[in-house]
């Protein structure tokens, strides 16, 4: 080996050593990071002192303490439902109306009785064929005839449900008519008020216009000087106008009477707006009514008076205008022009007032008509109610007559039984036949008793509210058939409160005592609701393992059937060392926690999981109270979760926050 070769060899060794040392240095520097990456990552939490409060939760349905189920003992067809869920009813309010007549059960038993009677009679006739029972048979025939006659009489009194319904419908219709008419009266009154308001307003407008006219008249000197004659004329004009107004009112009154007469004569109704129309109307009526009729005289007089007064007023106005014109000079021309305009405006306002007064008169007339319509509709209601009462009275008579039929049926039965007795006494029939007849008779007696019982407990045609409260359920509708086993409606008395219950295990039941207050889990109920544990009793479904917690629930706006969630439990207890449930582990030696221990090493801190055996004192949903192992609050950090399975003594890394 040459010297050069030896030198190359040494260089290679040196390079290798440098690389090795460099790698080792890097690994040393990052050893902590590299090691940490392979360690399980753990979340830790400090041990705290705190409370443990084990709660029992459950949910159930509210049941009313004052729920009353409205039931009927027999089956009927419902013809009307007068209440809805949520309605408040008082004792005696009609809840449902039922079809008149017998219940399904009664009809069925009665049919059975009729069949039994028929069969009995057939057998009786056969048995009587071989003997002389003339007297008994005549008695039977008589009883049969009496029964047939009574049945025929009774049938005449029969009132069908359709008739009753029609009568009730007629009442409803008439009542609706009354309501409509009353509404018309109200509308007319409103319109009159409005028209009166308009008249008042218009009157004010006239007064204002008049004041203005007077003011301008004073400006142009109509009230003094040469106006002495003007003032007199003007006062005369006002007097005439007042007279004209009174005459018009009298005329309108006469016209109304005449109008009533005219309506009787002809259907034609002419709107009377202007005097000319009135005149034409008068003439038309005069043709139809005797012209000599004194009824027209006052109207004619009033009309003539109006015409006369209007002429006089026109004359006065003309005179006033003449005075004004003669007095008019170039110096006060502007004032006079204003006066003329004001005068025109006053006339226009007066005309409007006249129109409004006419409109008011028309509205008053329509009010009278509407009031008359109300009276007529009320009379109609009274009549229709009387019709219904008559029908009901007839129906009552029918029912009484039907009950009377029972006497005839009993008489017929008695006649039949007498025949049977006679046959038995004669001993002509075989013993078997006698026994058969006797059995049939007993059947008939049994069915009679049953019919009597059903008749006694039969309902009327209306189902009344047995207690005041809120209707929480209605299970029938119009046209449906009731059933004795089914409640027609449920009425709750909210004042009596509600109960709810749920099942818990015996262990859970031991944690609570009667009288404990429960909290609402349905937070949306708010604080208005309170629940108190009223009773702890065996759960009928699992009496060995479970118990029922029964709560008294009170609050606003509660209804039966509402689902309520409650939470009840022990009072909170304080403990010195409380950890999350996930920190407590178990193995075959018992419970333990893993405590994080930190140890400072040259390149950082190393964390180790150390096992500490503890006793579990109590726990709730989230936390566990522990004791032992030197665990104390605030000084010990326990591992609550880990990214990998942990064993005591393992190095761990803490979760980066």
């Amino acid at each position: 080996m040459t010297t050069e070769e030896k030198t190359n060899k040494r260089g290679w060794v040196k390079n290798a050593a440098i690389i090795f040392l460099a790698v080792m240095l890097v690994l040393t520097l990052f050893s902590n990071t590299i090691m940490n990456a392979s360690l399980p990552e753990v979340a830790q939490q400090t041990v705290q002192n705190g409370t443990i409060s084990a709660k029992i939760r459950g949910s159930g349905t509210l049941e009313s303490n004052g729920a009353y189920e409205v039931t009927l003992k027999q089956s009927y067809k419902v013809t009307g439902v007068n209440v809805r869920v949520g309605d408040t009813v008082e004792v005696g309010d009609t809840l449902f109306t039922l079809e008149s007549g017998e219940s399904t059960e009664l009809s069925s038993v009665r049919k059975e009785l009729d069949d039994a009677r028929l069969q009995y009679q057939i057998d009786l006739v056969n048995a009587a064929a071989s003997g002389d029972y003339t007297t008994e048979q005549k008695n039977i025939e008589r009883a049969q005839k009496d029964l047939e006659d009574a049945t025929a009489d009774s049938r005449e009194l029969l009132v069908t449900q359709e008739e009753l319904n029609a009568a009730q419908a007629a009442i409803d219709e008439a009542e609706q008519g009354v309501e409509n008419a009353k509404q018309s009266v109200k509308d007319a009154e409103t319109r009159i008020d409005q028209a009166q308001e308009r008249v008042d307003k218009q009157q004010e407008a006239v007064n204002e216009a008049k004041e203005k006219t007077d003011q301008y008249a004073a400006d142009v000197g109509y009230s003094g000087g040469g106006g002495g004659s003007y003032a007199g004329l003007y006062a005369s004009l006002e007097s005439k106008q007042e007279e004209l107004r009174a005459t018009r009112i009298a005329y309108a009154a006469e016209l109304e009477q005449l109008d009533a007469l005219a309506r009787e004569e002809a259907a034609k109704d002419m709107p009377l707006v202007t005097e000319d129309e009135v005149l034409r109307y008068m003439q038309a009526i005069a043709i139809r009514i005797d012209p000599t009729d004194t009824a027209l005289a006052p109207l004619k007089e009033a009309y003539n008076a109006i015409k006369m007064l209007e002429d006089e007023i026109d004359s006065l106005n003309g005179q006033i205008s003449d005075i004004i014109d003669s007095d008019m000079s170039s110096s006060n021309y502007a004032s006079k022009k204003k006066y003329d305009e004001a005068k025109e405006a006053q006339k226009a306002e007066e005309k409007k007032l006249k129109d409004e007064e006419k409109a008011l008169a028309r509205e008053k007339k329509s009010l009278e008509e509407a009031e008359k319509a109300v009276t007529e509709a009320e009379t109609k209601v009274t009549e229709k109610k009387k019709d219904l009462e008559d029908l009901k009275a007839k129906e009552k008579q029918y029912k009484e007559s039907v009950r009377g039929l029972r006497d005839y049926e009993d008489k017929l039965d008695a006649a039949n039984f007498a025949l049977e007795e006679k046959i038995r006494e004669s001993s002509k029939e075989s013993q078997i036949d006698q026994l058969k007849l006797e059995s049939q008779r007993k059947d008939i007696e049994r069915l009679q008793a049953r019919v009597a019982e059903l008749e006694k407990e039969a309902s009327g045609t209306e189902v009344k509210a047995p207690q005041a409260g809120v209707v929480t359920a209605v299970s029938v509708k119009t046209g449906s058939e009731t059933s004795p086993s089914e409640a027609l409606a449920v009425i709750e008395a909210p004042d009596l409160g509600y109960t709810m219950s749920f099942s818990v295990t015996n262990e859970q039941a031991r944690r609570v005592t009667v009288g404990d207050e429960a909290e609402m889990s349905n937070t949306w109920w708010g604080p208005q609701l309170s629940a108190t544990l009223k009773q702890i009793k065996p759960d009928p479904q699992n009496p060995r393992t479970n118990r029922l917690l029964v709560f008294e629930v009170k609050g606003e706006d509660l209804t039966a059937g509402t689902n309520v969630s409650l939470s009840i439990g022990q009072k909170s207890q304080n403990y010195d060392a409380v950890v999350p449930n996930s920190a407590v582990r178990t193995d075959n030696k018992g419970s333990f926690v893993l405590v994080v221990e930190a140890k400072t090493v040259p390149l950082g801190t190393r964390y180790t999981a150390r096992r500490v055996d503890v006793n579990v004192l109590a726990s709730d949903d989230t936390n566990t109270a522990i004791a032992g192992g030197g665990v104390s609050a605030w000084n010990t950090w326990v591992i609550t979760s880990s990214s990998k399975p942990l064993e005591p003594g393992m190095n761990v890394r803490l979760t980066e926050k």
Partner: protein
Amino acid sequence: MPFFKRIPLKILIPSAVCVLALLVSLFSFLSVSADKGTLPAQDAAARWRGESDERFTQVSVFLPESAAFTPEKVYDFRAALEARFLSESIEAEEGASLYKDAFAALCGAMTAKGDYGSSPVEVYALGGDWFFFHPLPLASGGYIRDDELMHDRVVLDTVAAWQLFGATDVAGRTVVIGDADYIVAGVVEREADRYSEKADDGSARLYAYADAPTGLIQDKPVACYEIVLPDPVSGFGRKLMEDVFPKTGGELVENSTRYDIPALWEVLKSFSSRTIRKNDVTYPYWENAARLSENHAARLLPFWLVPPLLPLAFLVTLGVVFANKGVKKVAEKIKRYREFG
């Protein structure tokens, strides 16, 4: 390489083959060991043993629905088991327990409703300390335990938590299934190992108590029962389970020994027929994952056990050759000594 040049090829090649075989065996051994440690659900016995010197074993029983094995039967079984321990004079230390068990019923998909929305979730009805056997990492909150006072809480996995609440820190919130409210106790991560991922169908999971007071899942039979129990001598625990557990047509698996050579050999022997099922047992997802890893380990078994035989055979051959050479040399020396004195 001068060193290797001096070695004759007839030695070098077999030696290289032997080293390679040993490497293959070592890799297979490490891979099987990794399989064994991958699934915490198969390692409950070690967790239960803790720092104790006693031996424990984990056994699982998978039950068909037709067995109708209700939670009540679990309680009966526990009583029978404790009586058996007593008769075997196996006693627990004061304040401790000899065994830990858990069971699960597979309730199928149900629609759950959270604050964020509704979603179908696979519901698992649990009993015992199920999360001891399946220590899924907690994302928030805590697990549910059998000894809790109220059994109206549930645990969600992260998928369910996201679908129902849009978050994972949802402990204390309420999940509605049907008309019943359940309080979320915690949210767990899903298993992230390759076998669990293969066995995972991706559906959201909800874990509830089998005896939840609402009665929603009470009627479902137990599909899987798991227990960790003393095993003072090998096979004792399994034998005890076979004796005491009701014969219901299920399958019994000893989890603690399923990666041992005899068990893996059995798997390998029946590998082609393992897919044939003669019962209606439905494996839960964690058992499917375990069976996948078991298959993998069984496939590696020949690569673990056979390759070490090659160096052994090579060494034996060498020994024989050298021995023959030595014998020949001794014989020649004797011969020479006789010939030449």
